């Protein structure tokens, strides 16, 4: 193997803080999922449910995959080589904003993680959360006001565009603390954004219908695409930090910048479009499940001439 490639692939940064958080989150989720699965199985065997399963098998797969992507983004060569290649840094951001958050949230982590706690803790924390987010709690109203779709969209937008400012970006490469702050804001911004798209718990907002969720997912495409296009078509290096580092794979600073811009522009925007398509398919499945109209309603002369006009 090429020694440079070998060195690049062996550049892992095993961060104890990240490993511990990921292991703790994964353990709580899987433990909670198993407990709820057992309860769900008992209820099914006692015919207390109509076959619906809260703890479906795909949920831990999705959650653990989300954690793996967070781990890859923060500890794999992607992170380490991000200090040499802008394009690697863009892939890392893509994982933190667009891949890990939806995978974590479609697994609906809150109830499963609560059930992963020891009983006394679960009851205490569960009561605490119930007290905070019950209908009359001021905290719920404040949290809801602070996380409306419009505000969340703005937070997401500021984190995406703000960190791509050359000064902020170069500062993140110079300081580990700023770099961690950048990643944290990307991840939290992504979690807030995908919270509305996936409809995961806690559900404190007014019901956000499927069409609203589709529009919300698609609203991320234009700013993401424009930022990617602006970077890809820039006439000179925007992020001067890379001017002094060794070059990999024969990529010049400009080639690398163009590649990074294209990654943000195409695969980055694609993730939101895929989410919108999934939601559209759910919308259409819902339409397909609706019972057909009785013949008397659609076979009248008026309805056949101009369907819907008679209403």
């Amino acid at each position, binding site marked *: 193997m090429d*020694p*440079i490639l070998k*060195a*690049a692939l*062996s*550049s*892992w*940064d095993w*961060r*104890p*803080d990240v*490993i*511990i*958080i990921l*292991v*703790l989150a994964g*353990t709580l989720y899987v*433990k909670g999922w198993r407990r709820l699965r057992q309860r769900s199985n008992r209820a099914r065997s006692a015919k207390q449910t109509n076959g619906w399963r809260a703890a479906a098998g795909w949920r831990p797969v999705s959650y653990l995959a989300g954690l793996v992507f967070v781990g890859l983004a923060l500890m794999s060569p992607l*992170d*380490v*080589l991000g*200090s*040499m290649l802008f394009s690697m840094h863009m892939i890392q951001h893509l994982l933190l904003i667009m891949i890990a958050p939806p995978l974590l949230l479609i697994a609906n982590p809150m109830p499963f993680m609560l059930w992963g706690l*020891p009983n006394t803790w679960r009851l205490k924390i569960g*009561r*605490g959360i*119930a*007290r*905070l*987010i*019950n*209908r*009359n*709690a*001021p*905290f719920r109203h*404040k949290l809801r006001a602070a996380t409306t779709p419009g505000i969340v969209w703005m937070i997401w937008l500021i984190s995406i565009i703000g960190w791509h400012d050359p000064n902020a970006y170069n500062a993140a*490469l*110079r*300081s*580990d*603390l700023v*770099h961690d702050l950048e990643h944290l804001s990307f991840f939290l911004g992504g979690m807030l954004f995908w919270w509305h798209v996936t409809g995961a718990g806690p*559900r404190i907002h007014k019901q956000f219908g499927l069409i609203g969720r589709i529009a919300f997912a698609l609203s991320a495409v234009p700013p993401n695409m424009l930022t990617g296009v602006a970077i890809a078509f820039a006439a000179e290096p925007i992020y001067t*930090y890379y*001017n*002094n*580092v*060794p*070059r*990999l794979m*024969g990529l010049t600073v400009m080639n690398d910048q163009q590649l990074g811009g294209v990654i943000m522009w195409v695969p980055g925007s694609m993730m939101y479009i895929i989410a919108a398509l999934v939601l559209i398919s759910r919308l259409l499945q819902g339409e397909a499940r609706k019972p057909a109209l009785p013949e008397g309603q659609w076979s009248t002369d008026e309805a056949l001439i101009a369907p819907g006009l008679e209403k």
Partner: protein
Amino acid sequence: MKRLIVVLALGLLLGGSVPMALAHGGGEIKIGKEPVGPYKMTVWLNPPVPQAGETMHITVGVLAEDDAPLLDAAVFMEMINQANGEIVMSGPATTERSANKLFYEIDFPAPEIGTYEIRLQLTRGDVNGQVAFQTEVETANNTNWLVIGLVGIGLILAAFLYFSSRNVDLQIPDN
């Protein structure tokens, strides 16, 4: 489970105490692509202004003629006190010590307050050359602003939770 939580919490505390400099390299660029024979050297210092006793982290990038990383060179660091010319710290910077195996790195504790020159000697075959830069070492400041900031955020959050949840009748949401 209790034992697991205790172990993880202790691990988290220990993990959090690992010096930042060990994690990622970074720092302020002190020398940018300075020619040494046919090669070039780039040097970063983290933190940019070290304090006495603090861990200093030097990252060195060695670029071949085509700007690709050069991995089989030897890089040796010397830190010289400008006041008396004494070498106060020396040692090899290696790729084995770094998270990014394409860079040469060395960590060492910052010496006492003063002005120092840091020399980095590059050797590869017949090529032998060095780059150097000056740095100040300042008085140790034991204020950990990160911990203070985190504790502050925690207190604000706790106060917010406390005042938000006061005098509320418990009602389990029905949705």
